[in-house]
């Protein structure tokens, strides 16, 4: 190659002055040229990079650890999933402990426990060991996630303009307007199957149950489902499900005498709490009602339409003994001593020792009622010739009012429920209106103890009020672990809010001369918790508000510093251009 290298004969010229310039012109016109070292070009590239960086609004986060830390820890049912080292909750708890431990000395930590309601575990406590001890005791639940409650708590905490770092340890991501939330994802790659619901219908000869099952995984699956009746396996079926699919199964020929029904998935997944659904079949004890009247065919007929009710008639007499009925209906009559073993419904009451009846009124315009007795009643156009003027006692509340006074009131007195109609049904055309049987039915609903009436499904974490018999001495609720919760006495009946476990619960009422058992089912919140893939909850429009205004700024914004650098480099470039070379 050296030998073949072309040799250029020397040609001495006076100066390469013009030749150099000529060659530079030739090189400048070449389409592809070697990049020349150029100070100005390098400076301009630096300036462009700085401008691009400045436009990105860079900042250092957590450069200076905050004095205030808010940690939201999700303890809902989905956090029981075992697709982390132990469970998601254990993972989240470990992270929370790590955050608290590494917080700078003297900083304040607030822990929000997010289950079916968001509550403070501790509120800006600077004592780390205290916070850690509370965290250690925190347990996962079978409840749904109250992210809205958590949002409200955080916003309330930051109202005093505290600069706080907010951490969310959950498998559900949500944003809080105007707040920078550091989301620590506790979800894994696990999959889940769930029994969505279990219901039944009672036929003449047997019971039919219906189960809905969902596949919350990414693969098709065949799930073995078994049905247990009164704790014994009654039937088993296989169900083929595609990813994300929900299907139903009917179970027939279940004996009428059955009380407890369970539907169960017999295949392992990462969340077992929702693999079983529960349902109860309560035997319906006939209700005994006595109608004490001279003659009131309208009332008699409308009461008889009520389900599961046996109506007895009695003539009004001061010698009559009133005992052994669930409901006493007195029409234009009131005994000296009211019965104690049932509730009371009174029409056209005479003067008595239980409430004041003063004179008569001729009601004109009736006021619309919000009481449950007038549920589904829109027509208030019935006429009334006259009515007793009722004074609502302090233990009662008005049900129907007119301009002239109260016409109906209801209340509880001496463990008995009272509903008092001030008018004789014969003095009104209400009995001819379609709303009459509705009003009577609603009144009986309110007067007769039927267990859980208004709650169609009770989920873990939910709460409910229970109706008890008037003669109940003591009422308790027993959970699936046989733990007992007394809801009565004292009066009034306590709200039951201890439905922590899914399963069959029992309302046990000691009636004095016997015990009444009522069973109800508590099921896990499958709809919100069973899909255990990490979720992002977006509230439309919410994220747009106050986006520019972040309350808890805990970062060092270096955009201004970038702009300053740009100006400096511009000055340097100007100087090089003007005075360089």
């Amino acid at each position, binding site marked *: 190659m050296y030998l073949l290298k*072309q040799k*250029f*004969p*020397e*040609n*001495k*010229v*006076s*100066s*390469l*002055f*013009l*030749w*150099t*310039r*000529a*060659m530079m*012109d*030739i090189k400048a016109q070449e389409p592809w040229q070697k990049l020349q070292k150029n100070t100005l070009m390098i400076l301009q590239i630096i300036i462009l990079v700085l401008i691009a960086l400045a436009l990105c609004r860079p900042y250092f986060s957590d450069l200076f650890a905050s004095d205030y830390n808010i940690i939201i820890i999700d303890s809902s049912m989905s956090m029981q999933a075992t697709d982390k080292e132990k469970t998601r909750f254990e993972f989240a708890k470990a992270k929370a402990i790590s955050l608290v431990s590494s917080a700078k000395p003297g900083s304040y930590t607030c822990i929000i426990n997010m289950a079916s309601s968001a509550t403070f575990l501790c509120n800006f406590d600077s004592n780390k060991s205290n916070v850690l001890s509370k965290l250690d005791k925190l347990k996962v639940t079978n409840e749904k996630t109250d992210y809205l409650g958590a949002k409200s708590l955080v916003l309330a905490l930051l109202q005093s303009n505290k600069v706080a770092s907010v951490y969310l340890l959950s498998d559900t991501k949500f944003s809080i307007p105007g707040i920078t939330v550091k989301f620590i994802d506790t979800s894994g790659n696990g999959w889940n199957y769930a029994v969505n619901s279990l219901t039944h219908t009672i036929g003449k000869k047997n019971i039919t149950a219906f189960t809905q099952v969902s596949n919350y995984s990414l693969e098709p699956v065949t799930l073995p489902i078994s049905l247990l009746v009164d704790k014994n396996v009654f039937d088993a079926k296989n169900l083929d499900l595609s990813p994300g699919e929900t299907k139903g199964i009917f179970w027939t020929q279940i004996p009428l005498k059955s009380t407890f029904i369970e539907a169960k998935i017999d295949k392992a997944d990462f969340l077992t709490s929702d693999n079983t659904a529960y349902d109860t079949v309560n035997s319906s004890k006939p209700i005994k009602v006595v109608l004490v009247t001279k003659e009131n065919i309208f009332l008699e007929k409308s009461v008889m339409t009520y389900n599961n009710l046996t109506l007895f008639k009695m003539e009004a007499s001061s010698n009559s003994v009133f005992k052994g009925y669930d409901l006493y209906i007195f029409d234009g009559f009131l005994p000296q001593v009211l019965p104690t073993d049932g509730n009371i419904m009174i029409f056209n009451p005479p003067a008595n020792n239980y409430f004041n009846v003063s004179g008569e009124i001729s009601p004109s315009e009736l006021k619309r009622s919000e009481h449950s007795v007038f549920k589904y009643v829109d027509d208030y156009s019935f006429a009334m010739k006259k009515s007793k003027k009722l004074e609502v006692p302090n233990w009662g509340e008005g049900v129907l009012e007119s301009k002239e006074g109260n016409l109906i009131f209801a209340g509880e007195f001496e463990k008995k429920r009272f509903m008092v109609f001030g008018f004789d049904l014969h003095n009104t055309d209400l009995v001819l209106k379609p709303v009459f049987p509705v009003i009577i039915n609603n009144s009986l609903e309110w007067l007769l103890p039927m267990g859980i009436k208004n709650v169609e499904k009770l989920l873990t974490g939910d709460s409910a009020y229970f109706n008890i018999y008037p003669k109940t001495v003591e009422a308790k609720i027993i959970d699936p672990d046989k733990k007992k919760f007394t809801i009565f006495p004292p009066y009034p009946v306590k709200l039951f809010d201890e439905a922590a476990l899914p399963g069959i619960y029992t309302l046990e009422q000691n009636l004095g001369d016997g015990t009444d058992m009522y069973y109800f089912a508590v099921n896990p919140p499958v709809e919100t918790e069973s899909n255990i893939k990490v979720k992002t909850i977006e509230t439309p429009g919410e994220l747009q508000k106050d986006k520019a205004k972040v309350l808890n700024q805990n970062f060092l914004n270096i955009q201004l510093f970038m702009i300053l650098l740009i100006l400096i480099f511009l000055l340097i470039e100007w100087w090089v251009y003007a005075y360089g070379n």
Partner: protein
Amino acid sequence: MGELFDNEFIQKLQNLKIYTRNSADTGFSGARKSRSKGSSVEFSDFRQYFDGDDFRRIDWNAYGRFDKLFVKLFMEERESNIYLFLDASTSMDFGTPNKNYISRRLGAAFSYMTLAGYDSLNIAAINSSNSDSIKGLRGMNSFVRALNYLKTIQYTGKCNLLSSIKIMNPKKKGISIIISDLFIDEELSEILGYLKYLNHEVYLCHCLSPEEIKPSIGGNFRLVDSETQKYFDVTCTSSILKVYEKTYQGFITNIEDLCIKYAVNYIDANTSRKFEEILKKAVK
């Protein structure tokens, strides 16, 4: 001396005078018109008589005509300072005819005209190894000395025009004549600007040889700079030569533009031109 001038040419020089737009008003009385009004015999102008004026200067003819007293004014004759800067770098010793020959002949011609016009002559041959110069030559008796100086110039090294001019320390107001090929690293605008700052009339004689104006080489060559010995290899094709020609035109245009800007007399001293033609531009 015969190689620089013959008698015929020197006779032609006798009728030449360097025309200057500036009027010298410092120094000794030389054969040049100064705008200052002095005591010579050449009439210049009239002005009104004031108390204290020399009454011998009163023009009585003007009095008879206008019935007012006027005095005559006469031109004052002062000498000019002429500075001759010759580029004595290696690049000037090149070409056919050789640029140094033209450069020295021009130098001799300007020297003759200066001394014949009773002006003060200062000559400097500029290169990186020579700092000699001769200053304050007056009268034709000094012409031989000027010629000898020109004859002994060594063309070597690089040319540092501006610094050498500053070393000469020219006086304010005068004439500067630069004879160079202008293949210099310095900015010509700085040099001209400095001389104009000194209020000099500047003549720029640009010496180039035909080989530099339009090279006729072709093929692969290693071009070597005679001053720096730097080189680069080039394949001289017609397109390369066209680019060189364009570069040369740009070079000349740039210099001419600067001369217009600084009111400098540009003289194209291309060595292929006749000597008399070159001098015509400097002649009144």
